[in-house]
């Protein structure tokens, strides 16, 4: 069976889910050992380590934004707790206006 997550670069502080992971699921792959804090879908990111607010999020070995709120290792990292360092994104809620 395929691994639950992939670590794309040794410097990364997030991992990517290769399938939906379940809340409380113990994940051990690519030298990463974390427990998923909640159910997270394929393609989404989990914190590899504790990430305080203000931390640069590193994926592909490169910064992809900064944490706006802290997250513990195994927590979901997405737009509710991180943001772009370049330019704002728009969500479906904005389109509903």
């Amino acid at each position: 069976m395929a691994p639950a997550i992939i670590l794309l670069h040794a410097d990364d502080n997030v991992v990517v889910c290769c399938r939906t992971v379940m809340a409380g699921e113990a994940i051990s792959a690519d030298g990463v050992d974390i427990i998923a804090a909640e159910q997270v879908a394929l393609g989404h990111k989990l914190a590899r380590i504790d990430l305080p607010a203000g931390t640069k999020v590193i994926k592909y070995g490169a910064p992809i934004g900064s944490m706006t709120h802290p997250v513990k290792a195994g927590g979901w990292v997405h737009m509710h707790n991180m943001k772009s360092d370049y330019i704002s994104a728009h969500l479906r809620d904005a389109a509903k206006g």
Partner: protein
Amino acid sequence: MQALGYLRADGRKGIRDIVIVAYLVECAHHTARRIVDLADDPHVHLVGFPGCYPNDYAKRMMKALVAHPNVGGVVLLSLGCESFDREGLAAHAAASGRPVETIVIQQAGGTKAAIAKGLEAVTRVRAQMADKEVRVPLALSDLVIGTICGGSDGTSGITANPAVGRAFDRLVDAGATCIFEETGEMIGCEGPMAVRASTPAVADAITASIAKAETYYRAMGYGSFAPGNAEGGLSSQEEKSAGAYVKSGSRPIVGVIKPAEQPTAPGLYLLDVVPDGPPKFGFPNISDNAEIVEMMACGAHLTLFTTGRGSVVGSAIAPVIKVTGNPETWRRMGEDMDVNAGAILEGSATLDSVGAEIVALVEAVAGGAETKSEALGHREFILTYKSFEPSGPGCMPRVA
């Protein structure tokens, strides 16, 4: 590669022999569409420009498209009072060696008469194409191949996009011309990209094009980031950028081109799609097909389209090969997908094996095999107002 192309007067070779029916203003769109519908021929495609006001970009784009290697003949549909230079476009098509006919609806006597004349014109153009058809052996080095991503998610950047990058490396090594684009989706990647430039002038052009994209998108208030990108796990423009950039593979970037500019030598090119000057006509490209049309205007014979969420689009004129990076999308929408790069996530394929599969499919499609979107009848096309300054002399490789 066992394939025959259609030799054109300028020496380029087409992988399809399409009649385009082109409306020159929205007011001629319905009439043109009826002609295409009634012709009921998969080789007759509808294209056009909806605007009534003149626009140099649209004129250059249409001139490039009527002379596209996959186009064998042209029928122009004019209402009669729009500003588009229909005589100039027809003369350009004729000078390129293609049969061309122009129907002016106001002169024809209205919708029904124009449809009847248009159908006769399509028949005559097809007959002339058959008379002058020359088939010649086709090699990968004859091909221009574009790549684009649409409906990206968290899988795109780790499966489909790097697999296309591997395919691009193989294609460039075989002497093909490859084009990647959407500088707005390369924001944050300018440093590593400039290092790959084949000359300092190209490096400068890369850096300038990304800076322009960032300024432009900032003025528009949004990055190139759709709600579905977020639902698929992408959290920021630069995360999407890093995933999109890997479609370009690893070979040197030999030039930076703008829409409707033709590459002068084989190799890998960046297509700068963001308009020059302050924002004038809105978002750089309002949807994925606008970018496919711009790559076609740079001579792309076909497009490698990567998708995570599952785009279904194809294109008029040039076939689209769709590569999904998401195994769930493959299971849900497999009828629309040509390649399953999601198998990489599930451990049953590698980036190299999918890259090789893509190159084999490029060869098959160049030889006439239908892509999924072609078979489903997808013929999307969109062209809107934009403005560009010509590229500087250092942006192209010197021709030996």
